[in-house]
């Protein structure tokens, strides 16, 4: 069984981003970039399924500029067998990304597509669901457990009230939540081996997908700052302030 794992290159989650002075966006110059954390979980899940003998081939894909090859190499160092870069200089939005992925799904016919539930830059949480709709596949979003058996996948999902389990026919889309697994680190020998694994570069035009967007970002601003308040000396003083000053209890 074949698994497609779409991943995204984003600002490292430890970086505190700053808004540019002209409010045109966030400053990404000389900022550390990394694989989106939810995508790492997706790669790890695919690798575990392969280790269990359920999966035979893992294909990592991304849509982005040349630099995104770095994250594809990381995915291959973690266990993906080969990878595809759909190269574009444009800032692709989820719908266009889903369309590009749909074109790759048509080409590769994976049984399962595993991807992160959201990227920590745009915080959209759309791509997996959109791909599922375009490809006519069922979806198991926000997964905390994935079991493949008898041509179906059972997905336990993290929902607001607790957990929900759904059973999906294959092919299906799964998006990963934080507690699905703990991703491994790539070992040095595997990093070396990944350099020899195949990385195919396709231009967006070859896939017949346009990255033009109907959504325009007019401006990006820093959020309203919260300033630190006061330190209280005792619990009694705290309770007094909450009752008489803040009037919240």
């Amino acid at each position: 069984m074949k698994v497609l794992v779409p991943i995204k290159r984003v600002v490292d989650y430890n970086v505190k981003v700053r808004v540019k002075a002209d409010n045109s966006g966030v400053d990404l110059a000389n900022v550390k970039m990394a694989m989106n954390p939810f995508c790492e979980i997706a790669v790890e899940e695919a690798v575990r399924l392969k280790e269990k003998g359920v999966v035979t081939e893992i294909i990592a894909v991304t849509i982005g500029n040349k630099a995104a090859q770095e994250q594809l190499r990381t995915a291959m160092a973690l266990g993906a067998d080969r990878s595809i870069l759909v190269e574009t200089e444009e800032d692709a939005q989820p719908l266009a990304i889903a369309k590009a992925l749909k074109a790759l799904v048509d080409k590769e016919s994976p049984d399962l597509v595993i991807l992160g539930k959201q990227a920590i830059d745009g915080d959209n949480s759309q791509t997996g669901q959109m791909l599922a709709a375009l490809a006519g596949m069922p979806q198991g979003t926000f997964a905390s457990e994935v079991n493949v058996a008898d041509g179906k996948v059972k997905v336990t999902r993290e929902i607001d009230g607790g957990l929900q389990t759904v059973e999906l026919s294959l092919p299906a889309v799964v998006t990963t939540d934080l507690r699905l697994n703990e991703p491994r680190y790539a070992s040095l020998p595997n990093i070396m081996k990944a350099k020899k694994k195949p990385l195919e570069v396709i231009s967006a035009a070859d896939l017949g997908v346009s990255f033009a967007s109907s959504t325009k970002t007019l401006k990006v601003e820093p959020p309203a700052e919260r300033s630190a308040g006061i330190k209280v000396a005792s619990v009694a003083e705290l309770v007094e302030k909450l009752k008489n000053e803040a009037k919240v209890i």
Partner: protein
Amino acid sequence: MGILVYAEHDNNSIKGATLNVITAAKAIGGDITVLVAGSGCGAAAEAAAKIDGVSKVLCADNAAYEHQLAENVAALVAEAGKGSSHILAAATTTGKNFMPRVAALLDVEQISEIVAVESADTFKRPIYAGNAIATVQNSDSTKVITVRTTGFDAAAAEGGSASVEALDVAKDEGKSAFVGEELAKSDRPELTAAKIVISGGRGMQNGDNFEMLYKVADKLGAAVGASRAAVDAGFVPNDMQVGQTGKIVAPDLYVAVGISGAIQHLAGMKDSKVIVAINKDEEAPIFQVADYGLVADLFDAVPELDSLV
């Protein structure tokens, strides 16, 4: 034209999150139609008709919608919402699950988690875990939007008298099935709706120690939340997580106990009106956003708090 709002409900009543979405719809402007989809959801549809500002309720009562499976609900909403100026749902795990499918079916982009309406086509939304706020303008003829409920007040649940129409559309895609669910049972208010939230972090040391927080919470009518560290350590279940990838809350009072204040946690609670931090590490970043900080061992402070409230 008009705005279609997808309602969340328990078959009898409309969930609070939907009332915030109605307020967002009012800010956009236009006739508001509420879609109630479920199995045996007639009473919920009647309740939706009473919400202030709603002009029509569509009730899609069919077994296919019983568990809000994304495949079936998205097909329904895409059909019911075709031609609407906007389709809105709360950015809960339900809305986040099916709405992007609706957008893809209609071949339009989605605008996720708006926190403000600037005009009918321009909205504000947080990006980078709330470290930046983007103002975005969308030119699609139908705008598919999820609404972060903390950005909008709740509309009045009473005062409206909309008509209720049955929507006899059965969309069963047949590719997914509900197996089961484990829902947290609690008499405490829902995290996202509570006026007071008390959250514990890694400093709680174990799940049993959360009992201290439950005791104080019950005296104050508060909900209890947790940081990701506490959830990952297995102290409490995932549905209690407050943060970028958990629940976003904005209560009148948020009490962070033994939480250091990682940016991912702050992203989930920094819009609270009053923030209290109790932590023994006076350098903890949580103090930078707290209105009232108490540097103390939580195992002394929480029992004392319990005795004083």
